[in-house]
């Protein structure tokens, strides 16, 4: 085991290369650029022995991933924001074709107005594509999740692509120390990919042909079942990783000081890490408050959240908004509780456009709820006037 101190993107590149994909098709976009630069550099050093394809767009990147994965090899890519949106059609295709592609998406704002900072609207708007979605809060979690995701995606009970999301700049361009296992240890954990089926010129079969409604419905049901299977496999894989390498970032959620809490804060990504500082401070003040950092948005941790909802009132911070409705996490948290718990849930929209969300902001949000001063749903720290 070595310690590498580097940015989230270079750590993701390291993890991707150590997972030994055969093909990496990619197109650069800020702030993902250093991720593909990192992989390109491993081509130069000889550490990456697969095929690196510099494609002409993100749509092409995902098409090339689909082709490579369908040919039966491990495939990785990375993108961000508008790049992810350009892939949209092919994201659906990859999931419906049941291809275990692993992709990092660096959560970046969608324009216009043009903005390269972080929020989650890019990946949240890909919610219904069938991809598994992780949200990371540290560079170590990025490394560990990339490796674990291949194992998850390639499991025959899952066979769905995985999107690993992390915040633009806050993680992608911030250096942190990361423990890197030896290549042999990674190889032991993540066996060589053995596809269940593949495109093979010597055994020609067709995929994705026209099918009748009754069969198409089966495909959708099987995808749903596979996401349910992932709910069981994510904790199993995390447990195996912990046993081998001693590190653990949670299952579908990471609970932090939830014991005896009468209020529990839910957040994703970097805000989920910053919140730990707030929880420590608020606990010192005597507030019985804990944190549940949501790691997977798909599959959604309904059961875990229901359990927390039976214990405590919930506070949700969303760095995204479903315009015309509310924060996506807020909606789904409430849906998890519907008819089974009448706990109070308060939603806050914060940090859109990359606006900084500090531990101080999070403490203000939590205090407002605990003191009974919060509305059902509000924009925190909005500086534009009006409602």
């Amino acid at each position, binding site marked *: 085991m070595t310690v590498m101190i580097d940015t989230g993107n270079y750590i993701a590149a390291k993890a991707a290369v150590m997972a030994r994909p055969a093909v990496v098709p990619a197109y650069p976009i800020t702030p993902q650029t250093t991720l593909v630069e990192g992989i390109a550099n491993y081509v130069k050093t000889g550490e990456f022995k697969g095929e690196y394809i510099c494609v002409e767009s993100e749509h092409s990147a995902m098409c090339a991933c689909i082709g490579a994965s369908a040919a039966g090899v491990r495939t990785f890519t990375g993108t961000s924001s508008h790049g992810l949106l350009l892939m949209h059609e092919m994201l659906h295709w990859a999931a419906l074709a049941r291809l275990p592609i692993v992709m990092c998406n660096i959560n970046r704002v969608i324009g216009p107005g043009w903005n390269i900072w972080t929020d989650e609207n890019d990946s949240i708007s890909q919610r219904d594509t069938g991809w598994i979605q992780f949200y990371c809060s540290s560079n170590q979690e990025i490394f560990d999740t990339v490796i674990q995701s291949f194992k998850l995606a390639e499991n025959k009970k899952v066979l769905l692509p995985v999107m690993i999301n992390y915040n*633009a700049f806050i993680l992608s361009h*911030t*250096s942190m*120390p990361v423990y890197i296992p030896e290549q042999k240890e990674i190889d032991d954990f993540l066996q060589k990919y053995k596809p269940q089926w593949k495109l093979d010129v010597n055994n020609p079969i067709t995929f994705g042909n026209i099918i009748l409604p009754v069969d198409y419905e089966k495909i959708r049901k099987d995808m749903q079942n596979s996401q349910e299977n992932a709910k069981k496999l994510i904790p199993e894989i995390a447990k195996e990783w912990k046993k081998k390498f001693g590190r653990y970032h949670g299952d579908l959620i990471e609970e932090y000081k939830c014991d005896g809490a009468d209020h529990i804060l839910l957040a994703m990504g970097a805000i989920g890490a*910053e919140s*730990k*500082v707030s929880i420590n401070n608020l606990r010192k003040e005597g507030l019985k408050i804990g944190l549940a950092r949501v790691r997977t948005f798909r599959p959604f941790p309904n059961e875990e959240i229901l359990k927390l909802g039976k214990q405590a009132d919930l506070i949700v911070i969303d760095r995204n908004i479903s315009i015309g409705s509310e924060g996506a996490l807020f909606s789904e948290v409430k849906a998890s509780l519907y008819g089974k718990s009448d706990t109070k849930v308060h939603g806050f929209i914060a940090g859109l456009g990359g606006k900084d*969300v500090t531990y101080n902001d999070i403490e203000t949000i939590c205090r407002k709820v605990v003191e009974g001063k919060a509305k059902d749903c509000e924009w925190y720290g909005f500086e534009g006037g009006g409602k």
Partner: protein
Amino acid sequence: MSSKALVEICFHGRGGQGSVTAANLLVAAALKDGNKGVQAFPLFGAERRGAPIRAFARISDEEIHLRSEVYFPDIVIVLDESIIEIVDVLKGLKRDGKILINTTKEPEDFDFSNKYHVATVDATGVAIKHDILVGGIPVVNTPILGAVPKILDRVTLPSIQAVIKNKWKGEGGEINVKATQDAYESVDVNF
């Protein structure tokens, strides 16, 4: 500063001067010196050569959960003295905070030296002496790092020199190491 305490550092420089690299090298050295939690990051956004930029470093004995910007630094490091006229480099600096400036002046020459701990070092002079130039312009980010152990006991000069040698192998690394030594020995402080 107690050994457990979190130290937050803000670098002020101009785009192209290597402030981000300085922050990265500093925290790599701090990690080597046994500080378990470290972070280095730029002010997020587009960087332009010559424009005032900021970079940040955090050093702690524990894993760092903070992901927000540094608003109240313990230490401010100014790579380009001319920035003081256009940027409020003291903004948020803690009352017992320290400011390290690349300058030929002495700490007392700065009017804020009666309020803050000021350290000065002629990093530009050191860079010129050792011929550390890129496109004819002195590179001050490595020399100024040599001055940091004089104002911060959480990081040592040998560790800074080790990470520099690791980043630039051979003669380039050696020259930079000598520059850090010179800078270390020529720091002037008002405290």
